[in-house]
């Protein structure tokens, strides 16, 4: 995999909004995991989504991708309201990866990516049994695109390996390739560098820039602040389900409330959050959120989707 010289975030000169989420609320019984969140992502933009553990970032992703039906609010994609059906969302052009890797372990890397092509191909049962020239063309096309995507994420040589045999970092990249195979306009990455070493994290950053350069919009959840602030055009910070601030990396980085949210300000009913936030102390020191971050593998919770 080539590690190009690091690109700087592109100047904030973006196209039309791809994703417009407005007033999204998600309640689980008495718990409001996402509370009235608005998010607009524009073409060619890399949006960071940060917040302490349990802030509702993954839940928000699930609301966007139709895995949860938001209690309130609406999600518009390229101007049209999305139905809360994961398949319709993918078909519309929004793909995602998972915080806890959800590959198809017993399929090869190539087959995993080809599953991503499913919604862009249409060979039906009859065609698959008869196998005329059209079927072979479509299969070959899927295979070619899948192989190109594997090359794109730097896994070209592992195409025939079982997904479950790949090292952790490669599995994360394979998930990205699989998501890209659905031809998305917008890709949602849930902690793409969790469990990666610094070198792999650098490669992941490079990969995300290259994805953006393909013309995709990107939303990325990360706990690694240095990664987020050097990658994103805008950063959106969630705390306890609510938007704390959205702005350029510089604005967010220097906002004292963000720092407080991560270290925690003890008050009556927030003991839990404080305890959780303390677990992050070594990751985001109060004075300098851009200090070297440690791999966040042990800090991430399981995705409940």
């Amino acid at each position, binding site marked *: 995999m080539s590690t190009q010289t690091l690109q700087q975030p592109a100047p904030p000169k973006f196209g039309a909004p791809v994703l417009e989420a407005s007033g999204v609320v998600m309640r689980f019984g008495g718990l409001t995991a996402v509370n009235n969140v608005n998010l607009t992502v524009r073409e060619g933009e890399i949006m960071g989504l940060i917040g302490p553990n349990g802030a509702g970032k993954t839940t928000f992703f699930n609301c966007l991708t139709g895995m949860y039906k938001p209690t309130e609010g609406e999600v518009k994609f390229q101007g049209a309201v999305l139905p809360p059906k994961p398949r319709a969302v993918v078909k519309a052009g929004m793909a995602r990866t998972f915080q806890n890797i959800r590959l*198809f*372990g017993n399929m090869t890397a190539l087959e995993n990516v080809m599953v991503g092509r499913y919604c862009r191909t249409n060979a039906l049962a009859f065609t698959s049994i008869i196998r005329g020239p059209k079927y072979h063309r479509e299969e070959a096309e899927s295979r070619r695109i899948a192989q190109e995507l594997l090359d794109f994420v730097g896994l070209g040589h592992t195409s*025939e390996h079982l997904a479950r045999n790949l090292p952790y970092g490669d599995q994360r990249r394979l998930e990205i390739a699989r998501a890209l195979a659905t031809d998305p306009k917008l890709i949602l990455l849930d902690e793409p560098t969790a469990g990666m070493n610094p070198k792999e994290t650098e490669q992941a950053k490079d990969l995300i820039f290259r994805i953006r350069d393909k013309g995709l919009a990107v939303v990325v959840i990360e706990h690694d602040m240095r990664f987020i602030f050097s990658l994103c055009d805008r950063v959106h910070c969630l705390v306890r389900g609510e938007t704390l601030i959205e702005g350029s990396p510089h604005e967010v980085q220097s906002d004292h409330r963000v720092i407080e949210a991560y270290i925690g300000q003890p008050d009556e009913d927030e003991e839990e959050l404080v305890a959780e936030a303390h677990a992050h102390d070594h990751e985001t020191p109060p004075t300098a959120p851009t200090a070297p971050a440690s791999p966040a593998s042990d800090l991430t919770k399981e995705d409940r989707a």
Partner: protein
Amino acid sequence: MTTSPAVPRTKTSVNNPRPSPQWWLALAGAVLLIASAFLSWCYVPALLGDLSIDAFPGGLQILMIIVAVLAIFFLVLRSGRMPSMDTLLDSAKALKALSATAVAFMVLVAIVIALQAPGLANANPGLFVGIVGAALMLAGSWQMASDPLVDPITVRLPGWVEILVIVVMMAIILFGAAYALGQEDGTVFCLFLVFLGGVVAALARGGLFSWISVIAARHRQVLMMGALAVAFLFPFTQNGSDANMSIATQVLIFATTALGLNIVVGLAGLLDLGYIAFLGAGAYVSAMMSHSAFAHIGWKPPFIVVVIIGAIVSSILGLIIGSPTLRVSGDYLAIVTLAFGEIFRLTVNNLDGNNGPRLTNGPNGIPGIPDLEFGAFNFGDTHTVLGIPLGRFANYYFLMLIVAGFIILVFTRLNNSRIGRGWVAIREDEKAAEAMGVNTFGLKLFAFAGGAFLAGMAGTIKAHQDVSVTPDQYIFLESAFLLAAIVLGGMGSVAGVLVGATVLKLLPEKLRFVADYRLLIFGLLLVVMMRFRPEGLVPSRRRALEFHADDQELADRVEEVHLEIAADPDTAEAKA
């Protein structure tokens, strides 16, 4: 990437000082065993298919000759005469298993003679020569040490040799099946099973099957053609025996139905407990449209139309059951299909004119369904081909073979397509599959209704073959047996289902006590399978992986074989 397998891959030269005394001992045992087969084992000609004649080995004695010849083959391997084969097969393990088989077999024969002759006084010296020979083989091979083996995937023999191996294997299966079916005597059949189990175990331990599976993966087409040829040739080995062909046809119908169910269970991962009802729906459609005097539908279209109607009716039933249940989680489907099976049985029991329209004659069913007739070809007649009479059952057998071939084609092609990948993805992680744009509901519904379609198709033929259709042929127990065949043989594997269906259908036909206690025996069998080999006897590669999610060694091995075969230009086209 791949870690090295358990066995070293280097070609180690044979360094045992051979032939050793043990080697000679085992050889002497094998020779004695052969000699014993040419002697009389017992005075009573009526016992065990006549083992009383000197110099003419009877059936069971021939089995021992085979064991001894195999043992001698492995002994020759051990002497280092064939270095290329020696490193491929573990002769020590194979010899041990072969000797143990011979001993067990001879002791069992002695016991049978003692019990049924009655008394060992009726045994002839040949029996004791055989026992001594087997014991010597065991004594000689017991201490033999295994040599390091090479990994079979690294070995490439000339293509024609590999194909020859497949052909020979197929021929052995053909003759084995013909011989087994020919055994009228339950005891002989049992002893044959002991022999078969022992030899298969010996060859498996010797590493022959892992080698053959590599060859088979390289030559899929040849293997398929070979299997088809064997199935096609089988009736010609039966010399017009209707009894055997009837059993063979039953087995084939059962296997064909199980293959259809395996699309639902093995590929799409859905638990369908009412599959037999779809077979029944096809059978009833066919019966009602037949020329039987008890058929109440006036329209008598050509049979091919009946087949299509039966299949469509079945699949519509499948759609009706499937579309509400497949949206919810898998357990509901099991319950609903279970209920559907009962509803079907009760419905056909009641459509007798009293409680509903007069269609099925209730519990009496529809008897007297005439044989099929395609032009001048009547399925009830005996036709002589190449001097071999092929009776009524053989005719249906060939017809079912075509259906089975069609279902296998559907099975394998769907499995290796976009749809098949979707099914695997659903089995692996349904939520993730949905999030990647796979139409999970549609694919499951398709599998369910498609499986029903194939069952309906098979049912239309079964009705004519069975002559009559009654509700008690299509009860829950039959669905359970179909499922058992799949679990036993291997989910998602064509060969596995064929093996499973054959075992489950053939044993009760051949052995009274298995028929009497078949629920108990099959139950125990399944429990044992679940404990020791949950993926089935002949599993598909993927299913084996799924059942052993923690087995890293297996995953590495599977990947290694896959890489080797994917890299092979000869087989690249078989994969695509």
